[in-house]
């Protein structure tokens, strides 16, 4: 006998595979949604970050507004620098500050904090601004009918309900809104941006009287040298040891690039986790699908198909499903930069022109493909275990415990490939290993707990002959599907519970902070000659105790213990402290609610050399202790202070938190401003006070803490909604597995009904028995999910978010009841018609 081997790599099987798939697309809905979501997020984030980086690196000169940018705070540039720059090229002087702009209505007056930018006639040195209505920048900003011209963002127009042509008060002068600035070539996103843009001329700013010594004003000079190879040694020497910093095209975008990288890494990780969680959905969906296909697989084998051919038929189907799901995901992902073009141009990168980049498409495709194969290879390989004889003897309960060597090898390769891609994405080996560790440990815990529950259920005994005992026995029989159902549902529910507790803990924290601890308003840029009047007004409206006012000036750390900052070895977590200007304060009085960690506060009447109080965590990061000396440059003057104490800083309280607080004398006469917060439960009076202060003092700006919280919370909520949707999809994939299992066990259940009926059981009793069975499975999944969800969320909330653990019992119970409810309802609907089958017909037809 000659056995001619079947061709294993004949791609004509693809046709057979697709024909077998006909009519089964519905089974893959959840699988397709799962693949779509994960791949879409990774592609969208990848495309967006690639586009932004490309944009920034290619238009860095335009974004910088010249070839060089010099900037300083508080003080204007020294004449010598200005002269040198003007002699050697083209310059443009820009002055930036924050102020309040008030609408011109007689009723319902509106105020908004604005990012004021004053420019000279040379602005912009590079790029062209777009103004609506179309007018030149100089025309738009020049004086007209005794009013100074101004341009605003479209958002400010809506916020203040003003229109082009309106005349508003700005400090001591009036400004006329001459148009909307649609594109500002040198405007880039900044975290420090509080409000919308108000663009005026330098002359208008001077007329407004808003620039007072000590007020927080940023001066910038954009510079294009006549000679490209200009020697900047004069400039560099001149600015050494001052607050002036110089940016060139190369280093101007470093911060933004690193911001894009970090943000896209975070969102990509969310996408990756989505994809991995989706993997469970994909796996469950395919498992459910293949359970329904057991008979077809047995037919294929009975007709002579080898295991590898059957494997290939179903593998092709999964790849086909993957391809038709991933294509829309990729298209949707790469279209995100195009869809966000207006938003990005309007909000932070006015020159934005998106392109399609191949790299994010390839990475997302590979991620999707690897996750898809990784999570489906095991269910598909189980087709090896299906025997053709199952056509005669229904027993679909074979399980593959020892995967073949080829499958194990493939799994290993896929895991390594995924590790490599994660590493490529994060560029952080530790983080990649951490992600894998968490996924693996979570799965092992889930599996272990399910086994433990079934083991204890096996030991339990109910009254012999009771329905509960019959249900228990049915659930613990060796070929039971109950474990698969429990695991499938527990993943989604545990995830849902974890997210819910995190969300509730955060909300609880936010609500508590806003209501009890956080101030209502921040008041910025109060001048020293205004602080007593602000205090008096506060005392009149809400009581002096409600005001927390502290002096503030800006400076830079230049050295620690005489070692220059660039030569210091410090923890990279505190790099930001040394990177740029920081706010300093002074106080001889121990500040309110301060918690000293080491050392003590200096005496009230201290007049000796400068002492310093420093935030405890920053001190640890900088490797400094009491007695160490820190050198600063404040407004061009160098100071040295000795660390006298370290204190705890609780950023979450949203109050004024200075990392550096100095002793009072020697520094109190430097030009400075005050920053203050008002905290009072009487919101009406508090609002009235703020209104009074900002209308009396046009240079003082106010920021509502509540509004800031709402903005932060809306971003957080969006993230939670996305992850919650994924958890729901995972839960739905559990339903698919359940439906598949119910289809397979339909014949067994029919037989069970027939026998029960022959033995005299009424339909009601059988229904009750089944309900008990499914309810027990559901409750078991709920209990496991609660235990896992509560433990995981406890770890995340306590150690990662570092806030109080909080959950609402009612929400938790409601969530936990979803699974027993789903399992019972789905099973009941699927099984109901079996109850009314005629026992003899069943026995004749099937047995």
């Amino acid at each position, binding site marked *: 006998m000659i056995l*001619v081997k079947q061709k294993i790599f004949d791609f004509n099987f693809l046709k*057979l595979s697709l024909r077998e798939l006909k009519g089964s697309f519905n089974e893959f809905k959840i699988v397709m949604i799962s693949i779509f979501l994960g791949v879409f997020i990774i592609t969208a984030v990848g495309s967006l970050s690639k586009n932004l980086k490309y944009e920034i690196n290619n238009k860095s000169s335009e974004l910088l507004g010249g070839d060089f940018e010099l900037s300083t705070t508080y003080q204007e540039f020294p004449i010598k620098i200005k002269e040198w720059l003007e002699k050697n090229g083209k310059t443009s002087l820009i002055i930036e500050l924050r102020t309040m702009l008030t609408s011109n209505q007689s009723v319902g007056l509106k105020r908004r904090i604005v990012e004021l930018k004053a420019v000279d006639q040379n602005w912009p040195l590079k790029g062209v601004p777009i103004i609506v209505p179309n007018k030149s920048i100089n025309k738009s900003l020049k004086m007209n009918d005794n009013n100074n011209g101004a341009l605003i963002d479209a958002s400010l127009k809506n916020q203040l309900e003003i229109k082009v042509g309106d005349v508003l008060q700005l400090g001591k002068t009036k400004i006329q809104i001459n148009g909307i600035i649609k594109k500002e070539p040198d405007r880039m996103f900044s975290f420090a941006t509080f409000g919308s843009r108000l663009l005026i001329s330098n002359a208008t700013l001077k007329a407004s009287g808003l620039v007072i010594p000590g007020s927080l004003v940023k001066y910038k000079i954009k510079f294009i040298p006549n000679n490209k190879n200009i020697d900047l040694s004069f400039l560099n020497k001149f600015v050494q040891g001052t607050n002036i910093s110089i940016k060139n095209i190369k280093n101007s975008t470093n911060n933004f690039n690193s911001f894009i990288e970090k943000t896209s890494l975070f969102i990509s990780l969310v996408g990756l986790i989505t994809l991995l969680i989706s993997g469970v959905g994909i796996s469950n969906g395919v498992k459910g699908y293949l359970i329904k296909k057991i008979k077809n697989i047995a037919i294929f084998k009975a007709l*002579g198909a*080898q295991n590898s051919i059957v494997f290939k038929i179903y593998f092709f189907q999964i790849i086909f499903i993957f391809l038709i799901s991933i294509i829309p995901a990729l298209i949707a992902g790469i279209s995100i930069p195009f869809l966000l073009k207006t938003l990005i141009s309007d909000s932070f990168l006015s020159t934005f022109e998106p392109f399609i980049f191949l790299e994010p498409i390839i990475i997302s495709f590979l991620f999707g493909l690897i996750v898809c194969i990784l999570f489906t290879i095991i269910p598909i390989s189980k087709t090896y275990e299906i025997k053709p004889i199952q056509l*005669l003897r229904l027993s679909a309960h074979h399980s593959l415990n020892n995967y073949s060597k080829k499958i194990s090898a493939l799994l290993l390769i896929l895991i390594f490939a995924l590790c490599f891609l994660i590493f490529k994405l994060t560029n952080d080996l530790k983080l990649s290993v951490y992600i894998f560790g968490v996924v693996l440990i979570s799965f092992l815990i889930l599996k272990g707990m399910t086994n433990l529950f079934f083991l204890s259920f096996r030991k339990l005994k109910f009254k012999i002959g009771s329905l509960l005992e019959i249900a228990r026995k049915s659930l613990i029989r060796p070929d039971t599907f109950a474990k698969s159902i429990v695991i499938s549902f527990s993943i989604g529910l545990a995830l849902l519970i974890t997210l819910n507790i995190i969300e509730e803990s955060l909300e609880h924290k936010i609500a508590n902070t806003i209501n009890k601890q956080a101030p209502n308003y921040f008041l910025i840029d109060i001048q020293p000659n205004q602080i007593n009047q602000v205090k008096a007004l506060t005392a009149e409206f809400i009581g002096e105790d409600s005001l927390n006012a502290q002096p503030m000036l800006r400076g830079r750390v230049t050295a620690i213990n005489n070692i220059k900052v660039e030569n210091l070895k410090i923890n990279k977590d505190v790099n930001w402290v040394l990177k740029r200007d920081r706010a300093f304060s002074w106080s001889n009085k121990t500040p309110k609610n301060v918690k000293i960690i080491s050392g003590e506060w200096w005496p009230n009447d201290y007049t000796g050399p400068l002492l310093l109080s420093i935030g405890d965590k920053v001190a640890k990061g900088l490797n400094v202790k009491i007695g160490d000396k820190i050198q600063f440059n404040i407004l061009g003057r160098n100071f040295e202070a000795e660390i006298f104490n370290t204190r705890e800083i609780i950023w979450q309280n949203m109050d004024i938190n200075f990392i550096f607080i100095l002793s009072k004398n020697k520094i109190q006469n430097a030009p400075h401003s005050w920053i203050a917060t008002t905290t009072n439960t009487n919101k009406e009076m508090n609002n009235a006070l703020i209104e009074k202060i900002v209308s009396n003092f046009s240079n003082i700006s106010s920021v509502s803490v509540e509004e800031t919280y709402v903005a932060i919370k809306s971003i957080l909520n969006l993230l939670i909604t996305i992850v919650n949707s994924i958890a729901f999809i995972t839960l739905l994939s559990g339903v698919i597995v359940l439906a598949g299992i119910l289809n397979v066990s339909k014949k067994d259940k029919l037989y069970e009904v027939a026998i029960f009926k022959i033995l005299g059981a009424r339909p009601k009793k059988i229904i009750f028995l089944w309900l008990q069975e499914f309810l027990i499975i559901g409750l078991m999944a709920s209990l496991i999910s609660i235990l896992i969800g509560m433990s995981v969320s406890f770890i995340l909330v306590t150690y990662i978010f570092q806030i109080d653990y909080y959950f609402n019992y009612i929400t938790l119970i409601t969530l936990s009841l979803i699974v027993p409810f789903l399992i019972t309802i789905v099973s009941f609907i699927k099984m109901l018609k079996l109850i009314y089958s005629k026992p003899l017909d069943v026995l004749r037809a099937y047995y």
Partner: protein
Amino acid sequence: MKNNINKKIIELQNIHVDLKNNIETVHIIKGVDLIIHENTSISITGESGAGKSTLAMTIAGLELISKGKILFENKPIHNLNENDLAIYRSQHVGIIFQSFNLLPSMTAIENVNLPNEIAGSYNENKRALELLKIVGLGDRINHYPHQLSGGEQQRVAIARALVSFPKILIADEPTGNLDKKNSEEVINLIFKLQEEQGSSLIIVTHDQSIASQCSETIKLDNGLIV
């Protein structure tokens, strides 16, 4: 029992089949010797649980024996692995089941052509079409199983079993799910096609009238030929 001088196609030598579950081992076949010749028909009769279908399925390579030998054209097949048994079935065996076992997502012609596709010969639609015409379904080739009656589905199954010119045709209670009229038509078709093709037919049946049409009949009782 009729004598036959044709070549031996299948020889069973003292075969035993044990089925194990988690609780016990059941001895289904307890030592059966049997020779089946080329171009003959043999019926396997017996009570329910006697091991009729199990015996037929050992010949198909679907049921593994625990002891004894099975020879196909004097070559052992009982020691083949799962994949070689699949190839053996694909090249030499056609099976007709009581419950038809057609693939619901494929049309009649696609179902009939399936063994050829599995074997890798895709261009033989002609043969499938011819067979469907012979079984009287020439006008329903693009119908799906659920659009066909039980008798029609079984005729598709017969065509599928014969599409690859198998040397052995196994029919396991082929009329078990059909009414009398359809049963007669199906049985007539099976015998007619078996004769035309020169296959050896092994038919498992309760029905004495069907058994009597075979050139040989064996009766099983409690796993043994009686």
